[in-house]
């Protein structure tokens, strides 16, 4: 199974990396892994359920601000702060998921965008709590429960992020392979058929969106703990656009693809902007090249080389699924 092979390969490398890589690259690496986790969370929706979201930055922002508020106001240990940020994000995600899944295709995408922009507006409305346009700065990393402090340093925090990423990946893999995951692939292939088999597809979609927001919130909380601040820019729609690109460039519907898409994205943007300040030009052309010549994304190319792809034509018989656009 190429997923397990990839996992076995990357695990040891991931663990040894901090001692090999120079200090400053570790900063970029930590942020790249966080974005990888964030992209994987969106892949649950886009890759496994064909629910395109233009507002996934809401999950990231909610996670970051929840962690920021918990850590600054309640002075709880960092691990608990990040841990609590996930249920906080999920609590907000449930009504969002309930409303958004009422519609499909582009309307669904626009509803998620609306909630993200509403979140952005609320940050300015309740500025005494959220700090308005500057957001919340100076988020501490208080020592963890039972006096744990290993994660306070940079290398320690790297392992915290790596652990969360691997843990989330394994959990998502289990979810995708479970009976629940099988129904998701049914919804992706032909939702009308799945309903007529007796599945309440709306409930499954709500659960998928909430799960995606949960993992996205974890990524946001990890970022807030790492960068030490949470600002309105995290809610901005450009973040949603970027993470969607990571999923598509990485290879949707594979979990590993978006992680690689995220890491690739952050590194290319970071390195390119060193070399030339025309980096957006090169950046944009990379996307266009990917769409034109490598639609299945990085992971698609990699796996295609290793094993014969299952005989699956991209467009098939049966009625066109409902949303061709998004």
């Amino acid at each position, binding site marked *: 199974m190429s997923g397990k092979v990839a996992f076995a390969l990357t695990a040891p490398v991931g663990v040894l990396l901090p001692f090999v890589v120079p200090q400053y690259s570790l900063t970029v690496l930590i942020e790249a892994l966080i974005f990888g986790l964030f992209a994987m969370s969106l892949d649950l929706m886009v890759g496994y359920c064909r629910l395109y979201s233009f507002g996934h930055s809401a999950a990231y922002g909610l996670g970051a601000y929840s962690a920021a508020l918990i850590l600054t106001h309640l002075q709880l240990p960092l691990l608990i702060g990040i841990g609590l940020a996930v249920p906080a994000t999920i609590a907000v995600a449930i009504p969002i998921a309930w409303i958004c899944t009422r519609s499909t295709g582009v309307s669904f995408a626009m509803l998620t965008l609306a909630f993200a922009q509403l979140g952005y507006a609320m940050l300015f409305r309740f500025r005494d709590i959220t700090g308005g346009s500057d957001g919340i700065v*100076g988020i501490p990393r208080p020592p963890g429960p039972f006096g744990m402090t290993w994660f306070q340093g940079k290398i320690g925090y790297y392992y915290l992020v790596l652990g969360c990423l691997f843990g989330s990946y394994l959990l998502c893999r289990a979810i995708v392979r479970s009976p629940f995951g099988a129904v998701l692939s049914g919804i992706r292939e032909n939702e009308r058929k799945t309903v007529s088999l007796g599945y309440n597809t709306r409930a499954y979609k709500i659960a998928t969106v909430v799960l995606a927001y949960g993992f996205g919130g974890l990524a946001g909380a990890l970022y807030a703990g790492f*960068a030490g*601040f949470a600002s309105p820019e995290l809610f901005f729609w450009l973040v949603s656009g970027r993470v969607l690109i990571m999923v598509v460039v990485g290879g949707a519907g594979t979990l590993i693809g978006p992680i690689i898409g995220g890491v690739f994205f952050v590194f290319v943007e970071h390195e390119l*902007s060193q070399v030339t300040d025309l980096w957006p030009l090169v950046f944009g052309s990379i996307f266009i090249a990917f769409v034109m010549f490598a639609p299945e994304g990085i992971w698609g190319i990699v796996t295609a080389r290793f094993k014969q792809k299952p005989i699956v034509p991209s467009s098939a018989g049966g009625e066109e699924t409902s949303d061709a656009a998004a």
Partner: protein
Amino acid sequence: MMVRERATRRTILRGVAAASALVAAPAYLRHATAATPIKIGIPTVITGGYALLGSQVIRTCKLVKKLTDAKGGLIGQPVEFVYQDTQGDPATCVRKCQELVERDNCHILTGVIVSSEAAAMLPKLEEWNAIFISHGNGDGRLTAELFVPRFFRANTSAPMGARALALYLKDAPEKKFIAMASDAAWGRSSNAAFEEQIKKVGKDLVDKIYAPVANKDYSPYITKILQSGAQGCYIALQGDEARAFYSQATQYGLAQRVQFFTEIVAQADIKVLGKDAIGLMGSSRYPLTYDIPQNNAFREAFMSEYQNEIPDWTDGEMYQALMILFAAIEKAGSPEPMKVVAAMEDLEVTSVKGPILMRKCDHQGENQGFIVKVAKNDKFAEPIAEIVKIYPRELNTPDCRSSSFSK
């Protein structure tokens, strides 16, 4: 792994680049670089909405480097500016600063444009063992609630701009005022300071308006100003917002009904508004025509280096911040961060805006308050801001660690 292999390739690349620069550098400089260069990190906006202010920061740094090289460097070492593109986004800014500190070994940072970027950097200075001198960030909280010992602000803060205006308006004919600001943090602190000051001088503030950040259509706010019956209107908007507001206001003929007082008079706005800008009043972060030797020298050097370009407020304040930084490095005899901090406290430097005192208690630079009015001036291609009134720095700078003025 991909990362490690690229890192080694890049270190080789930089070695080659450095060698070639060495060859190209003028002869006398070569033996000066025997000593390591003083590296200053410039995390500014190169791409994105604030790119104009970023380009002004970079052009002034290049000018200062040229002038410093000509004088044989600073304490016998050449100055090297390292530029990074923050795109005006706090997340990117923090990442790029971390890289400036760890990879490029710059422990002195300046040239940050957006106040949310500056706020995000402050708590990190300790971890980076770096110091950060603000050249133009206006948010009052940076030297108040958010203050950290490794931060200095050489420039006039937003509350100081509002203060100068209020002092001027004490005996101005207008009685009723209305204040309009961007909903960003610095906009909020300008409005708050203006309200506090204008009421102290016996005028009344009819209303406070906050336009969303990057707002496009100002017609509702213009109608609100017209309805309010105010005679004077205080404006705290940045670049794009200010230009949009003034263009739309002139179409309403608002300038004929209400006298504008803006918190920053920007040459970029004047250039865009052309003749509509004439008569615009406000406090200035850089008085172009301030007749003191340091400013005349800077203006001549700038306008000869950059033909048909008039130095804007970012250029003036960037130059001043660098002069203060260089003075502190000379006094400390080394660019080591904590030594520079000690040297800069209570340091007095006379630059383009006259004598500046870097107060020990909150590291806020005491700047004089300049009130200006835009007028046609035949010495310059575009209309420019003429000085109307100057207020002493003690009167113009808020109390320690706060944005209010007890004096």
